[in-house]
C-alpha cells in the first residue's frame, strides 16, 4: 500500500548551524492515527514545517501518498491539511473570510468554498462567531478556526501541531471526538503532543522524537505492552490497619484510606483482592497512577541522550 507519508533520512540544519533533525525516517499508513511525541525542541515542528514547505530540508526524501515533494510539491500539498502550533492567520480578518480564502488558495470555486467553510465552521462550533474578527476569538476558538481552515479542501492527511495546547478539558474531549470521527471517515491524522496520555487516547501508532532523532517508533499497543509494571491506587471504605501486606506484591499505605499496589507484568491481580478480602479490607474504587506513561516517556527520552 502507498503510505500516506514516507520520510527517509530527513535532516535539517538551520542557518545558525543548529542541527534540528539528524536523519529521521518515518512511515505513516493511510487511515492511521499517528502521534509524534517529544519534549520541547525535539524537532516536531521542524519536521512538520518541512512536510508543508515552510521549512527547507537539508537532506532526505519525503513522499505524500507517493508524491515526492521534490518532484511535484503542489500536488503533494493538495493532500495535506495543516494546523500549526502558532496562530498564523490575519487577526483582523473574520473567521469566515479566513476559511473561504484558504479554500480559494486551493482552487475551490467561490460557491463550493462558502459551502465548505460553513460546513467546517459549524462542525467546529464556530458558525455563530463567523463574522467576528479573529483576534476577538478565545484561544481555544482560534485553534478550532485553524482546524476548520485546514479541512476546507478536504485533505487526506491532516497534520496537527499540538492541537490541544490552550484548549480546556471539555473542548479537548470534543476535539478528540471530532478527530476520531474524521479519522474513521478515512482521513489519515498525524498529531504532535507532549502528552503520552493524549497519544494513548487517540493514536494507533506512535513515534517518539528527541534531539532530532527517532527514539521509538511502534504501535501504541506495543508501547503499552512494554510497560513492565503498573501501579494501582486503591481507595478503601474503612480505615486501614497500621500495616498491610500481601504476599508477592509491593504495597504502600499512603494514608488511612489509600493503598498503592505495584503489579508486575504477568502477576495475577485477583490475588490482591483475595488477600484484601481475607484481611477484611473493602475497596471502594481503583485507578491507575496517572503518570505511569510519563515515567516511561521520561525513561525513553533520557535513555536517548
Amino acid at each position: 500500500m502507498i503510505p500516506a507519508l514516507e520520510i527517509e533520512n530527513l535532516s535539517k540544519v538551520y542557518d545558525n548551524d543548529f542541527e534540528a533533525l539528524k536523519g529521521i525516517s518515518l512511515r505513516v499508513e493511510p487511515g492511521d492515527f499517528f502521534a509524534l511525541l517529544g519534549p520541547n525542541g525535539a524537532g516536531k515542528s521542524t519536521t512538520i514545517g518541512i512536510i508543508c514547505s515552510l521549512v527547507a530540508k537539508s537532506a532526505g526524501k519525503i513522499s505524500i501518498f507517493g508524491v515526492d515533494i521534490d518532484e511535484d510539491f503542489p500536488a503533494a500539498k493538495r493532500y495535506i491539511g495543516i494546523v500549526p502550533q502558532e496562530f498564523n492567520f490575519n487577526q483582523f480578518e473574520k473567521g469566515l473570510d479566513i476559511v473561504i480564502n484558504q479554500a480559494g488558495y486551493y482552487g475551490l470555486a467561490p460557491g463550493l468554498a462558502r459551502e465548505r467553510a460553513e460546513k467546517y465552521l459549524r462542525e467546529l462550533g464556530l458558525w455563530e462567531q463567523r463574522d467576528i474578527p479573529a483576534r476577538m476569538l478565545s484561544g481555544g476558538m482560534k485553534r478550532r478556526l485553524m482546524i476548520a481552515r485546514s479541512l476546507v479542501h478536504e485533505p487526506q492527511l491532516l497534520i496537527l501541531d499540538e492541537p490541544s495546547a490552550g484548549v480546556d478539558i471539555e473542548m479537548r474531549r470534543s476535539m478528540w471526538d471530532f478527530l476520531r470521527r474524521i479519522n474513521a471517515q478515512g482521513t489519515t491524522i498525524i498529531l504532535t503532543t507532549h502528552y503520552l496520555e493524549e497519544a494513548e487516547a487517540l493514536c494507533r501508532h506512535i513515534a517518539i522524537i528527541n534531539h532530532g532523532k527517532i527514539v521509538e517508533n511502534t504501535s501504541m499497543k506495543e508501547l503499552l505492552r512494554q510497560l513492565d509494571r503498573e501501579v494501582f491506587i486503591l481507595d478503601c471504605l474503612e480505615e486501614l490497619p497500621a500495616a498491610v501486606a500481601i504476599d508477592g506484591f509491593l504495597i504502600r499505605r499512603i494514608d488511612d484510606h489509600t493503598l498503592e499496589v505495584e503489579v508486575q507484568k504477568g502477576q495475577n491481580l485477583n490475588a490482591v483482592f483475595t488477600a484484601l478480602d481475607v484481611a477484611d479490607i473493602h475497596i471502594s474504587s481503583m485507578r491507575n497512577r496517572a503518570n505511569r506513561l510519563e515515567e516511561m516517556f521520561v525513561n525513553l527520552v533520557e535513555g536517548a541522550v
Partner: protein
Amino acid sequence: MNLREQYVAFMTIIRKEIKRYLRIWTQTLLPSAITMSLYFVIFGTLIGSRIGEMGGFSYMEFVVPGLIMMAIVTNSYSNVVSSFFGSKFSGSVEELLVSPVSNVVILMGYVVGGVSRGLLVAMVVTLVSLFFTDLTIHSYFIVVVVVLMTSTLFALAGFINAVYANSFDDISIIPTFVLTPLIYLGGVFYSMDLLPEFWANVSKLNPLVYVVNAFRYGVLGVSDVNLPLAFVMIVIFTTLAFTYSMHLLNSGKRLRQ
C-alpha cells in the same frame, strides 16, 4: 493546479487585498485624497498663480498629471509593502505558502491588489482636481498604458521591500528616504528644462522622471523626455522588478526557513 484553479486562487488574493484596503480606508484611501487636495490648493492655486507658465501650460495644468502619478506610485507601493509585510508578520503568508498556489499567482495577486488601490486613489484625486482645473486628455491610450505599467512597477517594488523587511520600520524607510525624494525630484513640480545640464542628466537615472513625463504626455501632449525612451525605460524597470520578485519567491529567501 490547473488553470481554472490558479485563476480562482488569483481572484481570491485580489479580493482579499481589496477588502483589506477598503476595510481600513481611512488609512489607505483618505490620506492621499487630503494630501493631494492640499497640493492642488497650495501649489496649484496659491503659489501656482505667481509662477505663471511651466512647459507652456498654466502651473496648475502642469502639476496635476504629476500629482495624480504621485498618488498612483505611493498607493500601489504602500499597499503591497504593508499588506505583504503584514502577512509575513502575522504568519498568514503561510496560508498561501502551504497551499498549491504557484508563486507567479501569489505575486500577481498582490500586485493587482496594489494596482487596484493605485487606480482607485487616482480616480479620487482626478475627481478632486476637477474642482481646480479642467482636464482634457491628449491620449487616453497612453494614459491607460502608463498608469497600468507604473502601478505594476511600484507594486512590484513594494513587494520586494516587503520580502526584505524585518520590522515595521523597514517598510517605511524606503518610502521615506528613497521613494519620496525620487518623486519630488522626478519632475512632478518642475520641468526638466529648468535644471542645469548636469542635474538634468542625473535625473535621467530616476525612473520617476519617465513615469511622470510619459503620463504628462498622455494628458497634456508634452513631455520633457523622449516618449519611446520613457516607455522602454518603464518596461525595463518593470521587467527587472518582476524577475527579481519571482527570484525571491522561488528561492524562498526570507519566507521559508
